[in-house]
C-alpha cells in the first residue's frame, strides 16, 4: 500500500499506509493523524483539511478543481502548493507523498 507522510506544523512526522482509492484526508483521519480536521467528511465544503504538497509531488497530485480552488483561496496561510487533502486521491503513483500541515484548520 502507498505510504504517505504527514508533517505537523510543529515538525512531528507521521507516516501511514493507505489503501489506493481513499483520499489523502481519509489517510490522516483513519490513522488519527492530528492537524487535519476534515469537518465535512470530504464533501469539499469546509476547507479544514488544508495541506501543503511538497514541491516534488505537485505534478502527481494533479490540479485543483474550481470549487477546491475557490474554497482554499480563503484558507489561512494559503500558498501556491496548498491543497484540500480530501480532493487528492491516493494512487500507487503517490507512494512516498509528503504533505505538511498549516498552523491550524480553523
Amino acid at each position: 500500500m502507498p505510504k504517505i507522510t504527514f508533517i505537523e506544523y510543529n515538525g512531528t512526522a507521521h507516516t501511514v499506509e493507505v489503501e489506493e482509492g481513499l483520499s489523502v484526508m481519509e489517510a490522516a483521519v483513519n490513522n488519527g493523524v492530528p492537524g487535519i480536521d476534515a469537518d465535512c467528511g470530504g464533501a469539499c465544503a469546509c476547507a479544514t483539511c488544508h495541506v501543503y504538497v511538497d514541491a516534488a509531488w505537485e505534478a502527481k497530485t494533479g490540479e485543483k478543481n474550481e470549487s477546491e480552488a475557490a474554497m482554499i483561496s480563503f484558507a489561512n496561510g494559503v500558498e501556491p502548493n496548498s491543497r484540500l487533502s480530501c480532493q487528492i486521491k491516493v494512487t500507487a503513483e503517490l507512494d512516498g507523498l509528503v504533505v505538511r500541515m498549516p498552523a491550524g484548520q480553523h
Partner: protein
Amino acid sequence: MTAGIVIAGAGHAGGAAAAALRQFGYKGTITLVGEEPIPPYQRPPLSKAWLKGEATAESLALRPERFYTQQNIQTRLSTTVTAIDRSGHQVQLSDHTAIPYEKLILALGARPRRLPLPGFTLPGVLELRTAADADRLKAAIHPGTRIAIIGGGYIGLEAAASVRALGAEAFVLEREPRLLARVASEPLSAFFHAAHTAHGVAIHVNTQVVGLKGEGRVEAVLLADGTELPCDAALVGVGAIPNEEIAAAAGLECRHGVVVDAQARTADPDIFAIGDLTQRPLSLYNRTGRLESVPNALEQARQAAACITGRPAPSPEVPWFWSDQYDIKLQIAGLPFDVARLVIRGDPTSGAFAVFHLDAEGHVQCVESVNTPAEFMAGRLLIQKRKAIDAAALADQTTNLKELAA
C-alpha cells in the same frame, strides 16, 4: 487505572470527542457507549450517497474499526446509558451494568419528532436519522414507487432529490407557506422550490397533513382539505428533539437542550455535553441556541476534549452547514439573527448565487451560498470579523471578495 472518560452517545459528536481526546494526548480509559450496533458514522450521506447506493459502510464510517482498537477506545455498542449517578460518578447502562467515570461527555443527539396523527405508526411510515432508517427508506424506493415526504426541510428535500435520482416519484408536503421556512431565506426557498419542481418533485406548501391511511401499510396521505394523495411509503422529516431526558433526570439544566457553556461544560464540572443535544452559547450573536449540524458537533467535541486535557479553549467558530441536492451545493455560514436586509450576489436563475444577511450596521450575520464556494468562504470570514461592509459593493459581482473580506 482510573475511571477515565465515558462518552454517552456514539454518533458524530461522541466519535469525534473520543478521537480528539486521544489526539490531545489523553491517556486514560475512554468508553464510548452507543445505542446503534455500529461504530460512529457520518449521517449526512444517509439522505444522499448512501440512499443512492454510492457509499459503502466503510466510507460511511467516521473511522475504521481498527482505529478504536489502535487508539484504545472501548466501544459498548447496542447499549444505552439509562441513568447518570452524579454523586456516585457512574452511569447505568441498558444491560444493567454500570461504569464509573471521572468525566462524562453526553453526546446523546436528537431524535426525529413524531407527529401524533392517525396512521403514523403504519408500516411504510419512515423517518431518517440512523443507517437503519436509511436502509428501510432505501428498500421502499424503486423506479415508479411514490414516496410522500412530510416536511419540506433539509432531510425531506435531500431525500426527495435522491428519490428522483433513483427513478421514483416524490411529493413534498409542507405546512408553512414555503420550503425551508424555518431555516432559510425566502430567495433560497424559492430557488429550491423551483429546482425540485424542475426535477419532477411535486411541492405542496400551505398544506396540512391530518393523517395517513392504509390497510396494513401506508397507502395514502390525508390532507386537511379532504384530499387523499396515494403513496407507497411516507418519510416524515419535521424536525428533531434533543435526547435530554437522562440529563434532566440527573438534575442538569435543560432548556430544549442540555445547557452548556462555551467549553461544552454543564454546571457539573465533571459532565460535558456536545452536539445536537445542547443548548449552547452562540457568542457571535449574544444568545444561546441548539444547532443540529456536524460542524457544531465537531466544534463542541474539540471544546470538551480541550477542556478535559487542559488545553487552551479553541476560539469560537462561525456555525455552518451544508446540503447537496442534485447538482446544487448549498453552504450556509452564520445564523440569520437581527437581519435588517438581504443582499443577493449573483443571479438565482443562473444556479449560482449567494444571499448575504446584513444587520442594521452592515455586519454580515449569515450567508447562504448556492454553488458559490468563494462567497461562502468570504461570508464566513466577514461574519467572524464583524466588519461593516457596503451592501452595494457586496452585491456587485465585480467586487473582489478577498479584498472585501480582508
